[in-house]
């Protein structure tokens, strides 16, 4: 049994806690997040509101739980888009290495990389209007070249190996080899990259909803909670500190988990870094 590093355990604990909060918020939150209570606005933490209320009297704890749900949903689906579209592209490029297809896919990737992700989001929002769905789209598009690159790079090193040659001799075509032999062998790397992109997606979602390009009211999101707090945080710093801490802890948890996974799956890397 391998001894698990402390950082990894901390990462898993943090990530699981937020995931649990998000899942619980689907069926139960301490208070209704759409219920406004103007009389009870900006209340300090106390009975009924463990973390106090915001400028519209909404319960902060409930908002943070529901916000976790928005963040996780957006980032997770965006990672899904990246994997579902990017990995096959990368595998295809590797299977036809140095062909026109490979060149085309890689140049297309470079083109997307030239657009800062935030700029893609702004373009998409300009076209389709702001919504959580469009935030997913904007973050997801940027994930496609990332996964395509990882998949292609890892697949290329495998294509020269004997077991692939054996599969070719057995008469399997490139598509089948990619799916049956290459994909299982690069799954590790994809999981690590997925964790990284997941945490970047959480940050991106927060940024987009902060500037009003993400989930629209009344859907709670951490980024918009921060934007809302901006008028009040001189007098009520709590409103700005809490959602920010939630973002930091969630992202920190995912990063620690991703680093831990990478070290465990790739012992070579561990030797050179430590």
């Amino acid at each position, binding site marked *: 049994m391998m001894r698990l590093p402390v950082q990894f355990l901390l990462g898993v604990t943090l990530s699981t806690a937020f995931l649990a909060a998000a899942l619980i918020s689907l069926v139960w939150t301490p208070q209704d997040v759409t219920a406004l209570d103007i009389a009870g606005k900006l209340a300090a933490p106390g009975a009924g509101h463990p973390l106090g209320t915001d400028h519209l009297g909404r319960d902060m704890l409930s908002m943070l739980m529901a916000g976790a749900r928005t963040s996780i949903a957006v980032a997770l689906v965006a990672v899904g888009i990246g994997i579902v579209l990017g990995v096959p592209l990368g595998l295809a490029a590797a299977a036809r290495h140095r062909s026109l297809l490979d060149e085309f896919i890689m140049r297309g990737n470079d083109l997307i990389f030239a657009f800062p992700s935030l700029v893609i989001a702004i373009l998409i929002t300009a*076209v389709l209007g702001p919504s959580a769905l469009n935030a997913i789209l904007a973050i997801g598009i940027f994930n496609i070249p990332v996964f395509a690159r990882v998949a292609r790079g890892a697949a290329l090193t495998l294509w020269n190996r004997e077991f692939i040659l054996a599969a070719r001799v057995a008469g399997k075509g490139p598509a089948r080899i990619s799916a049956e032999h290459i994909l299982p062998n690069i799954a590790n790397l994809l999981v690590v990259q997925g964790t990284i992109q997941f945490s970047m997606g959480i940050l991106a979602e927060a940024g987009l909803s902060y500037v009003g390009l993400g989930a629209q009211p009344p859907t709670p999101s951490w980024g918009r909670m921060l934007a809302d707090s901006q008028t009040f945080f001189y007098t009520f710093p709590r409103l700005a500190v809490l959602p920010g801490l939630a973002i930091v802890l969630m992202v920190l948890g995912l990063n620690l988990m991703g680093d831990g996974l990478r070290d465990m799956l790739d012992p070579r890397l561990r030797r050179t870094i430590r």
Partner: protein
Amino acid sequence: MFGYVAHRLISLALSLLAASIVVFAVIEVIPGDPASYMLGLNASDETVAALRETLGLSGGPIARYLHWLGGMLTGDFGTSYTYRVPVAQLVGDRLWVSLPLAVYALALSTLIALPIGALAAARRGRAVDYGIMGLTQIGVAVPNFWFAMLLVIAFSITWKVFPPGGFPGWDAGFLPGLRALTLPAVALALPQASILARVMRSALIETLHQDFIRTARAKGLSEGQAIRRHGMRNAMIPVLTIVGLQFSFLLAGTIIIEKVFFLPGLGLLIFQGITQRDLIVVESVVMLLVFAVILVTFMVDLAYALVDPRLRR
């Protein structure tokens, strides 16, 4: 060297062309005609048609694309639908906030990250290293706009050292301008510096395992001397790549940070453009940002060749 530069130049031009087609096509999809939007509901068809003509909106998509592209090449970005001034002038004014901010942040990030990363590499496995790695791990997780808000609470409200927002303009003098951009630049730089420090550390540690470092040590150089004379230069390739990438992150990041500090930069311009359907402004700013990113990638490629003579061949 010449072949390398020529090859890079061609790919620079092609990337720009492809990017311009993408930006134009996306904006083209947006429903709604700017001319009728500007003139309101009661405008007659003739007035709308006349305005379309002056805005360069008549003709097919290809003709309009070529018109737009030709204009940009000659420095004419068109006229803003809402401000009725040349877009080049609008963008030019705003650029003098966003660009210095991004450069300031990049300078801070590099100045903080490289020594810290080198220190962590030199003291790897010891308390200093763990401390730096822990701090950078947190730094990577902090959203820059939230850090910006914390900075305002600390340095504008608690201790009134820096202004909480706004920009006096460079006419007010260099130092007041720099002062207004300091908190935004620090906020932008911190997460980037954390990433860069980690890259610097692992790039240096990677080179320390190389034979040429062992040779240098065998010749009697101390580890510090070996790092400074031989390690640094070889660690520069990954570091340069990240610095280049970071510039585009920082330039795009100014869009969000400008909102925290109410800075009149490109970010504010682009959001106004979106809400007012001033698409030519949105189009131009996006194209400008993409241009900057592609140009920086190009310069990083050239810098590789300077750092690593093997690439010049």
